């Protein structure tokens, strides 16, 4: 695996390498080189299986972090390519020509985070949220509890317990 990362470091400017466990690595690349490195890994290194495309909202630094997770079916290793994009007017190149199923992931990200992927097929069709008229719900500045209280008739007087402490009090009160 180290050889692969060394080889890719020569071609692209890899900013950070994280080893999650024995078979999972993550590398961070600049936005402009993201899809190029994904294509390189698919065509040259044998990461032919696309696992997922996910997003994390780093609201403090004003960035979205996209992760393209690839899998090497022969060597049984995963490699994630992390890209940071701006949170304001978030936009990323569409990767649907690499694997067709990426289009669906991009529809989901468009819906949940409001990230635009120009030229991605059926991008604006609603996937899960039909007729959503608020800010995209997975953004961290969206207050779900407030939205629920306004919309869904919450049960008055409902209270929740932390399962760990609650079970401890109920089952082992003396400890």
């Amino acid at each position: 695996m180290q050889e692969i990362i060394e080889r890719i470091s020569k071609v692209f400017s890899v900013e950070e390498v994280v080893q999650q466990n024995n078979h999972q690595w993550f590398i961070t690349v600049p936005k402009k080189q993201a899809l190029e490195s994904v294509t390189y890994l698919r065509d040259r290194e044998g990461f032919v299986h696309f696992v997922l495309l996910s997003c994390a909202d780093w609201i403090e630094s004003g960035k979205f972090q996209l992760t393209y997770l690839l899998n090497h079916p022969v060597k049984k290793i995963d490699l994630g390519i992390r890209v940071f994009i701006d949170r304001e007017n978030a936009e990323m190149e569409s990767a649907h020509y690499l694997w067709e199923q990426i289009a669906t992931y991009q529809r989901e990200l468009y819906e949940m985070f409001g990230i635009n992927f120009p030229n991605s097929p059926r991008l604006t069709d609603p996937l899960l949220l039909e007729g959503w008229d608020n800010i995209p719900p997975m953004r961290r500045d969206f207050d779900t509890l407030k939205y629920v209280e306004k919309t869904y008739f919450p049960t008055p007087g409902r209270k929740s317990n932390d399962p760990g402490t609650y079970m401890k009090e109920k089952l082992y009160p003396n400890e």
Partner: protein
Amino acid sequence: MENKDFIKPYYESKIVESPDGEEIKVNPLEDYFCGEAPKSHAPNSNKLWESFLNWARAESLWVLGFGTGCGSMEILPLMTPRFDAYRFGVQMRPTPRQSNVIIISGYLSVKTLKRAIRSYEQMQNPKYVMALGSCTINGGMYYDSYNTINRLDHYMPVDVYITGCMPRPEALLAGFEEMKRLIKAGKGEKANEYAENFEWYKANQKKIIKDWNMPDYNW
């Protein structure tokens, strides 16, 4: 922001050309759907006859094969040798027209609620609703989710709630027994309740289903 082209043919009138070259105007709202609000159907005035019919209704519960959330996994074992709900007169039907029980099995997202309402309204009077799990009672563990409803009885009238997260199939069987008891006692008139409070239910439904692209009356 949203592209609704792919749902348009559902409800907008259009002109279709027949193989003979004849042009036919199709207006789905008028042609396929009813334009009237549901009516309340009073029970038979003869008490004895009505209780006999209620016995038949209670002993023959045809459940619509409609699964939402995790509870649909708990319905499947009901039909297996271990639980065998058939011996209690519970059977699964594939179409809402023929069934008289709908089970809302767990959390209900807004998208699924739309389908559930359509299925519920296509069922014939008398019809019964069974709600599974804490999600349908107060939202359960999804009480603060942006996309799941909290209380089912604001959107459709519920006959029997079954608590648990998730309830075991035994609890479901107990729920069916409770539903039979209610129907035999003549308390299974929630379909009429839905028809009488139709405006209130519709307002609640429309409050959360923002793109209401179906007719108000789905039968």
